């Protein structure tokens, strides 16, 4: 397959994956929320309500487009894209299976974080551009939260880079080959606090993607619809898609760093097309298990108070992750034979 064809195919795949994912994650979320709350959830629109996302999409797209009074038109329209585009671009470096990856670049991990930072700016500009006090408060909160949680997240990532010696996501996955005990979350020989760093990373990715219980950007009972308050129709839809794409990225990263990515829990590997399917199915299994957990968490907990949330980061997550960093360094340097 020529390189350019591969790239184009992959772009199509990534775009449709991101779109479908966002649409059907909403469906999953509504269905999951329904069953957690002992009700059915969307059901009447198509079999099992499967056409619900399409109906929502059609409706959002056909909604009247208008700019609310007082908004900054350019920022208002660009902001959703600034949330959406980097998230989609991040998909390019995610290894869905050993060979199924758009660009296997050496700095994949760094790239995802670099793009994620654009996302924050998008949210902030959107909330500012809305010329709405609630949106503004939400934007400000969202940024302080992102800054606060970026630190433990990066520290944990650095720990993981120390462990794996690479920032290439595929390499990271390859280093976890073998039985499932080789997944990083179980590698207590590399760092005694590995499960804790998994938790920290997961919590941070929840916070970075503004998910409950850290959903300050959309704190409904406090700030109407938060940063999205003024967004009608598809602007809101794009924000939403971006948000879900970010959730997928966060969970994929967690799966890759700690749960062995596309590695099967048993040392069984295939070549060729079967191998791609085998790896992909394991990756997706892990990915969606994590996403389900995210949904599950959202429908279980109340929202944290904003300052408690910052306290959690500064008083709990950062010290522990720093300690973890030092511990890992010591463990790797002092007991290299482990």
């Amino acid at each position, binding site marked *: 397959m020529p390189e350019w064809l591969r790239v184009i195919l992959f772009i199509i795949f990534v775009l449709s994956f991101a779109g479908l994912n966002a649409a059907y994650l909403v469906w999953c979320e509504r269905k999951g929320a329904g069953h957690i709350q002992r009700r059915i959830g969307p059901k009447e*629109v198509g079999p099992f309500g499967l056409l619900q996302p399409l109906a929502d999409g*059609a409706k959002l797209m056909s909604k*009247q487009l208008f700019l609310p009074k007082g908004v900054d038109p350019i920022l208002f329209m660009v902001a959703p894209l600034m949330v959406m585009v980097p998230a989609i671009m991040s998909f390019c470096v995610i290894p869905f299976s050993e060979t199924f990856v758009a660009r296997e670049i050496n700095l994949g991990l760094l790239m995802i974080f670099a793009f994620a930072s654009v996302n924050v700016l998008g949210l902030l500009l959107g909330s500012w551009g809305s010329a709405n006090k609630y949106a503004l408060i939400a934007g400000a909160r969202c940024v302080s939260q992102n800054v606060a949680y970026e630190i433990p997240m990066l520290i944990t990532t650095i720990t993981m880079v120390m462990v794996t010696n690479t920032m290439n996501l595929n390499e990271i996955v390859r280093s976890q080959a073998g039985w499932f005990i080789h997944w990083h979350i179980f590698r207590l020989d590399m760092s005694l606090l590995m499960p804790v760093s998994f938790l920290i990373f997961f919590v941070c990715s929840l916070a970075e993607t503004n998910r409950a219980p850290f959903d300050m950007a959309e704190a*409904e009972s406090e700030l109407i619809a938060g940063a999205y*308050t*003024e967004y009608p129709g598809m602007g809101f839809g794009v924000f939403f898609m971006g948000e879900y794409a970010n959730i997928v990225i966060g969970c994929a990263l967690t799966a890759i760093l700690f749960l062995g990515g596309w590695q099967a829990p048993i040392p069984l590997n295939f070549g060729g097309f079967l191998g791609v399917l085998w790896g992909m199915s394991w990756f997706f299994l892990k990915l969606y298990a994590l996403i389900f957990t995210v949904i599950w968490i959202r429908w279980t907990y109340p929202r944290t108070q904003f300052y408690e949330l910052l306290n959690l980061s500064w008083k709990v997550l950062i010290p522990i992750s720093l300690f973890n960093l030092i511990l890992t360094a010591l463990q790797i340097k002092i007991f290299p034979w482990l």
Partner: protein
Amino acid sequence: MGKEVVQPPIIHFDTLDKILGLGRANSLWPMTFGLACCAIEMMATGAARFDLARFGAEVFRPSPRQCDVMIVAGTISKKMEPAVKTLYDQMPEPKWVIAMGNCAISGGPFVFEGQYGIVEGADKFLPVDIYIPGCPPRPEALIEGILELEEKVTGHRRWPRVEAK
């Protein structure tokens, strides 16, 4: 008063319109907007026993910008009227109004001679699409109202009618 005059589109896409109509009808997002007693029944309709979510209408959006249908659930006082009107104006087209409960239909039990505080019915200043009587209506009636609205949007009814005995 009344619906704004919408210019008819120059070109008619019949099938597209139908699809969009189906989309709209099956994704009616109401506003988180309760005025009085009926709001509790509205919440009950969204709760597990009756589950408005089955029709894709459980996405109660707190911001009017993202809503399709305004369920006026309760008495509108004269002090509240401008706020309701603003909220309605903030909703993007196409939008619908459901008057839930007797107060929203006509002022209900609070109409008496010499009253000074309430607006006698949401249709005095909003184009109401569906009326649901009752004080308050049962959750089934609200579901029925949503179904009626879907019928109004798409032109036909997908669900069986329930005859009360």
